[in-house]
């Protein structure tokens, strides 16, 4: 049994300047309440690691609008003109990473691997400054693992141990990020008693989740 935090209490655990992994794909599967609380407390200098920056006023876009983010490591910013504008103006640093490579770098970070070898990005700007490794006659790029100070997750159900389930396309980066950060904060849609989630359905074990946010009122 553990005490659930309010979104504001959760946001207070994210220090200015922290590296923060945030689940979600165009805002689907993002922890919207914690994001709103982070923007409201005026967080500054964050490095955000996520699939995308969603849209202005939505999902991670809220943090971009509020000036909380100094740097982001993402695969796509095409639907957020504010991110593009801040990047071109030099107000925010943006590192673009192929989506599959991003997922694998985070997975490697949480799985104790020294990196992954992928053919993705060979012969493109993604290869710049990276080591090319040949295995059995095929070329790959060495992509290094990613870890973060904090992971902010969204889940469908959490039980009192913070065992988590996800729903449909709201899973995306949440399960890999749960493995790759020192502090793991999960924002559930539902909280259920222990035992309600069958062991086979638990996707992220509660032992990895350091803090659970209360269910929405």
């Amino acid at each position, binding site marked *: 049994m553990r005490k659930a935090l309010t979104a504001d209490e959760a946001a207070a655990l994210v220090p200015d300047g922290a590296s923060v992994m945030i689940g979600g*794909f165009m805002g689907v599967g993002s922890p919207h309440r914690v994001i709103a609380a982070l923007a409201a407390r005026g967080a500054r200098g964050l490095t955000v690691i996520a699939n995308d920056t969603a849209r202005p006023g939505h999902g991670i876009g809220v943090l971009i609008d509020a000036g909380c983010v100094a740097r982001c490591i993402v695969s796509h*910013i*095409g639907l957020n003109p504010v991110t593009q504008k801040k990047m071109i103006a030099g107000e925010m640093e943006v590192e673009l990473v192929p989506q*599959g490579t991003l997922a694998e770098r985070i997975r490697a970070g949480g799985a104790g691997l020294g990196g992954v070898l992928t053919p993705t990005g060979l*012969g*493109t700007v993604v290869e710049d400054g990276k080591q090319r490794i040949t295995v059995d006659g095929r070329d790959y790029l060495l992509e290094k693992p990613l870890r973060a100070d904090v992971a902010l997750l969204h889940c469908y159900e959490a039980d009192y141990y913070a065992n988590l389930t*996800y729903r*449909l396309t709201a*899973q995306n980066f949440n399960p890999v990020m749960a493995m790759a950060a020192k502090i793991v904060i999960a924002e559930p849609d539902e909280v259920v008693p222990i035992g309600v989630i069958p062991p086979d359905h638990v996707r992220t074990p509660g032992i990895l989740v350091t803090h659970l946010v209360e269910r929405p009122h």
Partner: protein
Amino acid sequence: MDAKEIIARRVAQELRDRTLVNLGIGLPTMVARYVPEGMLVAFQSENGIIGFGARPPEGMEDPNLTDAGGGFISALPGAFAFDSATSFALIRGGHLAMTVLGGLQVDAKGRLANWMVPGKMVAGMGGAMDLVSGAKRVVVAMQHAAKGEAKIVPELTLPPTSARPVSLVVTDLAVIEPTPEGLVLRERAPGVALEEILAATAAPLMFDNDVPEMTL
């Protein structure tokens, strides 16, 4: 039939029964409307689902169920939802028979550029680089030219999506296949003259005396 429908209908002829296919955002999505009768194609959306269907009726949308563009979808019987690492393992691991992607440029070597225009538009590559590296076949579905400017060029002037050549380029004017010898013009769109295609193409094209029309 407008340009987009011509492209989508022709690309749909490349679909094969009981295969996994990924359709990019925008025009490629339209291909799903023209799956040949009786054929079972498993469409993947890289944000984490195989087997998605049309947008649900108004008021029935599920905020946890969208396509890669963020639009609401439904799940068909037999659908499978998964996380991003699994999604790209499917893409990179040789499990994806075909991907259909939009394009800004294709060059004489068959290389695709589709993720940024320096100084103008930086969308980010999203899943495109993984898709071009990993899918067994890569089909580019795009308008032949943009505002009078050729998109099929001798050498990319935009940053490439992959060094790997694509398998086929389908436009509103033509079907073009990149080969080691160069680009081969395979088909003309209905009613489109050879001269019109050559005029709209900046890269050299190889072709037979009699280039057939697409059958749509």
